[in-house]
């Protein structure tokens, strides 16, 4: 169904009306195929410039009509072309002789064993289909080319998501192929209201972009806005969903991500059910989810699959880690340099003792260690896996120990920075963690100038920015500000599922009910002791 829909919509050229993909196609705009086979072939070969993997196979349809088969040998399924296209066309003799006028219908209706067949008479459409890995059959005397979907591009198998691992939850992650990804979503939501609309973005990449939403839940204006923002994009290539994210977000200069990405189909399904819209791009294993608010970036799938009490505690721990990764080093600098009287005397003495041999002021010391930590982190990502682990141990342990021994930094600074760095990795969303990790540098500097006062000024600036930020018109800190009671149950803690019978109202879903009241009442009833110890029946 989805494959057919894109297949047909491209050929009809209704959506994304023919945009010149390249200078050579521009010349052929609006030209139609002539009924002379040789002429048509010459035009196509002229455009394709006889590429090495472009195959042109001449044969006779029903042993009488001269025809050619054109395809890129690198992009097709050879067996399919042989068995389902070439064999029936050459072998399946119709009982009576077929004239050129009936040929088109006979081939489509009686001969080809392939479900995805289409015909077109425009050169541009034919060449685009060819580039996509489809097979073209041109027959002498016929003014329509037969296009057969035979594309087969090598893809990796559905695998564990690399960046969003969970202990409890599905193990599937998206891959690069859009059709596989759509299938992963579709089998989770067996409802006819699941809409997957595809369009093409990118003049040269012609990337297929799929917009997924649930018709009866997602707010119609939100869906329209997503389509509107996507439709204005005119770029040469969309190589990853990250390109789209930057082109559709509200504030392009904010450090905070306003679009969530995920490689988990179950996460996409859960978000669709809340009334959000997902955007998938062919060639990218990461789906985009809009609109996104800040609290999504510290939630994980596990929060919902594991028991609520434990996951609420873990979510709070994650949030503390997030806040720590932002302000911990600057608080340390402010207290050590300006207000050492705040901390208990014994500890203040210990800190002062540790810092005795350090020549720099606290702010410089913290900045140096922070920057070297960022360098180490970046280096560990770039290193080949085999040496990465070893080097990170050398980097962190040895350099940290040596820096202290050399009187370069105090042991407490190293502890603070290590805690901060680890804290920033506790955030499930890499982009949100990155934003806060970046923002802690200006905070450290301002705390070195103004102390606690500066830390507060910095935090107020960050908070003000977050409060003014929007994702598709939705305030970034919803459901905290503006407050939404239904949403707050899923903000700091994750309330039991029975407490959240309605979808978050701030997404303005059309259908609000998630659980029926009758079911909740039944679930909450006290259960009989079915297999409890039976009262003295079999006792001696």
């Amino acid at each position: 169904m989805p494959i057919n829909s894109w297949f047909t919509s491209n050929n009809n050229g209704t959506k994304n009306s023919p945009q010149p993909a390249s200078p050579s196609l521009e010349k052929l705009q609006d030209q139609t195929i002539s009924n002379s086979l040789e002429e048509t072939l010459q035009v196509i070969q002229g455009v394709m410039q006889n590429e090495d993997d472009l195959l042109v196979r001449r044969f006779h349809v029903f042993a009488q009509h001269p025809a050619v088969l054109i395809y890129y040998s690198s992009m097709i399924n050879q067996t399919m072309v042989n068995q389902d296209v070439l064999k029936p066309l050459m072998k399946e003799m119709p009982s009576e002789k077929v004239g050129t006028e009936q040929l088109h219908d006979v081939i489509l209706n009686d001969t080809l064993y392939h479900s995805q067949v289409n015909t077109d008479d425009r050169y541009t459409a034919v060449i685009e289909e060819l580039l996509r890995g489809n097979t073209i059959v041109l027959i002498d005397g016929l003014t329509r080319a037969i296009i057969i979907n035979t594309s087969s591009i090598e893809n990796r198998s559905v695998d564990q998501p690399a960046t969003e691992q969970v202990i409890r939850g599905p193990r599937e992650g998206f891959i690069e192929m859009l059709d596989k990804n759509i299938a992963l979503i579709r089998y989770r939501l067996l409802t006819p209201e699941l809409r997957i609309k595809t369009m093409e973005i990118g003049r040269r990449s012609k990337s297929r972009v799929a917009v997924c939403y649930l018709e009866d839940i997602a707010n119609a204006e939100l869906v329209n806005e997503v389509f509107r923002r996507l439709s204005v994009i005119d770029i040469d290539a969309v190589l990853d969903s990250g390109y789209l994210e930057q082109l559709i977000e509200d504030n392009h200069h904010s450090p905070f991500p306003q679009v969530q990405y995920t490689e988990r189909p179950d996460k996409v399904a859960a978000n669709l059910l809340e009334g959000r819209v997902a955007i998938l791009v062919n060639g990218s294993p990461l789906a985009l989810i809009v609109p996104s608010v800040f609290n999504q970036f510290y939630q994980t799938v596990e929060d919902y699959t594991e028991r609520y009490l434990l996951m609420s505690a873990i979510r709070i721990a994650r949030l503390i880690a997030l806040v720590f990764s932002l302000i911990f080093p600057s608080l340390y600098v402010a207290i050590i340099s300006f207000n050492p009287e705040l901390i208990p005397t014994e500890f203040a003495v210990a800190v002062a003792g540790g810092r005795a041999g350090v020549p720099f002021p606290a702010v410089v010391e913290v900045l140096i260690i922070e920057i070297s930590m960022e360098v180490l982190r970046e280096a560990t990502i770039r290193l080949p896996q085999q040496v990465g682990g070893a080097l990170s141990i050398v980097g962190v342990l040895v350099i940290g120990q040596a820096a202290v021994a050399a009187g370069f930094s105090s042991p407490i600074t190293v502890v603070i920075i290590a805690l901060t760095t680890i804290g920033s990795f506790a955030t499930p969303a890499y982009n949100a963690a990155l934003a806060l990790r970046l923002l802690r540098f200006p905070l450290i500097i301002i705390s070195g100038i103004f102390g606690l006062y500066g830390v507060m000024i910095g935090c107020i600036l960050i908070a003000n920015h977050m409060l003014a930020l929007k994702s598709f018109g939705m305030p970034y800190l919803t459901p905290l500000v503006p407050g939404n009671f239904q949403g707050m149950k899923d903000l700091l803690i994750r309330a039991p599922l029975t407490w959240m019978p309605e979808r978050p109202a701030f997404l303005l879903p059309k259908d609000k009910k998630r659980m029926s009241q009758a079911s909740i009442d039944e679930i909450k009833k006290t259960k009989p002791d079915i297999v409890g110890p039976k009262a003295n029946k079999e006792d001696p």
Partner: protein
Amino acid sequence: MSNMRQITTIQSAAVQVSTIIGVGVLALPLIAVRAADSGAPLVTLLGLMVGYVGLFAITILGMRFPDQSIIQYSEVIIGKWLAWIGNLFAIVFFAVLTSLAAREFGEVVVTSVLKSTPVEVTVIVMLLLASFSCRNNIITFTYLHHFYFPLILFPGLGIVVLSMKNADLINLQPIIGNDPSHMLTGVLTIGALFQGTFIMTLVIPAMRKPQKALLAGFVGLLIAGGLYVAIVVAAVGVFGSEEIKNLLWPTLELAKATTLPANVLERLDAAFLAVWVTAVFTTLLSSYFLTIRMASEMFRLQDHKAISTFLLPFVFILAMLPTNIIQLYAVIEDVGRVGLYITIAYPGLLLIISLVRKKRGNQPSDNVMEPLH
């Protein structure tokens, strides 16, 4: 185009609270004690009543003209030129209020934590922060207040609760004070601390249900006033009225005198002051927002962003005019009392004239507002 009427009743109450609670709290017990010794809590309570008079005047006016701010409906009520004069006074008054609050907090910071920083720096930092945040619309402005509201209320309450163990009931007696003759001045000075209620004139035109503005204002002022009275009670209870007369910022001293259980932090004053930055920021934000919104409405400007930057140097110069803290507090008390003419007498007059001339604005229809987008 998103709907501009989306501020809820709770949010407008939060705006009230965080606008009113500001730098004035730090010196509040001193002002109250100067007026009536141990009768300070009573003076504060009476000051709150004065605040309520202003609140009711501005809110009832706002509910008569639910789509307009004071700039627009004053022109309807008393004519363009008279309104122009009154509004100009209001704009200048709030600009002065912004500058004095910034200067006062700047002085607090350089006196107690950043001893070697020039006061100009701390003042300009606060003013920059306010003017930068004023560039948003009224909805985001409300979000800011809503977000900071708990961060302001709970540290204040925390200080009160933690210091109660040192309080002595005898310090609070007699509750009417020993010499009630100065009470009226004190009541008016403290009443001037509640001038933030004027912000209702900008909030009401964006409220989802303007008919609930009175409730929102009442609750907001009750919370803020309750905290004021609690702080005065705690300060007088802990230090006694004679001791407070020797303290410049008794609330800060109160924070200094309290300790957290388990001795997590040895002293609380620096931490309290850091948290109080948010309270001062929200107050500055409101008074500066009032200034620039009213100015841009009066001069019929489309956008108030440019005026926010334009007015900043003037406000800064105003803030630097008082030469020292003593003069600063004298100016603050005078300006506050003069301000009562603008925040209470002017709206009151407008209200009476509008009642006499039977002027009212469009009443909001009862149908449910269109949701956002």
